[in-house]
């Protein structure tokens, strides 16, 4: 009776920004690279020569709405 019963919906707790930032930088950059390769590589921009990446993700790029060619 002295203790609060577990709350089904926890009270929102803010994660301090300084705790998020290192993850945001590291995982954010990796994630953006993944999005870049599906969305734009070997289209308007190219890190690697050739058309392999473009052709591999061709249909996904079109259907995800990115300009393809």
């Amino acid at each position: 009776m002295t203790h609060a019963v577990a709350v089904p919906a926890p009270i929102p707790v803010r994660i301090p920004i300084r705790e998020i930032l290192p993850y945001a930088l590291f995982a954010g950059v990796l994630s953006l690279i993944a999005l870049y390769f599906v969305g734009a590589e070997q289209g308007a921009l190219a890190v690697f020569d050739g058309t392999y990446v473009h052709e591999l993700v061709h249909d996904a790029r079109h259907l995800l709405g990115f300009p393809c060619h």
Partner: protein
Amino acid sequence: MPLTEPDRTTEQSALTVRSLLVWGLLAGLVGGLLAFGFASAFGEPSVETAIGIEEAGGAAHDHGAEAGGHSHGAEPAAEEEEVSRAFQSTGGLGIGAVAYGLGLGGLYSLAFAFAYGRLGRLTARATALAVAGLGYLALVLVPFLTYPANPPAVGKGETIGERTGLFFGIMGISLVALVLAIVAARKLAARWGGWWSTVAAGLGYVVVVTAVAKALPSFNEVPDSFPGSVLWEFRVASLGTSAVLYATIGVVFAALLHRGLTRKTG
């Protein structure tokens, strides 16, 4: 305060950015797979039709040329393809959708980490869905309405650089406008209350992105002979693919988050 203290600390320990990232990547994986399923069922037919039109058009242009390698650089003729059409429309689509899903899921979980506890009194799951919904609005719907998705055979090779830059540009502007609108809504909430501050911020966002979209150059590169119904079908499938992706990420992440939070506290 003493009553809420234990809950706060237990939730704090469950709510690490690391576990959010793992849940985000899992949600992104599931979202990518479901988006792949949706895209192959409802998107591929119009892509195949469009490629058929593209190839027929290309063939008509260089009747005399034996090689038939006239089609623009990015889309070599069938015999020089590095990845066969059969694989592009199945494995390639799957790899692309899952890679995109994982990347988006990761970024989504980081966005959630920033948003949770900073969007008024929204619960964890409501915040998860709000982030997914607002992400879809800012990163899919607004860019799509500015520069609609185009199937193969639509779009000129010469403008691909410009179109790509502008597409990423409107994504960026829309995202920045959304973040500013949310910050403004939170600031105004103290004075106007949650309802009117949200309405005002929403209106502000819509006005800004509409003005930007109208100010940016537009491209009309749909060939006259391209059937409107195929274009419509493709574009609806494109919106649907992203909708499946964002909705799945939101729902799966919310479920994992809720499980993680309640298991540790309960």
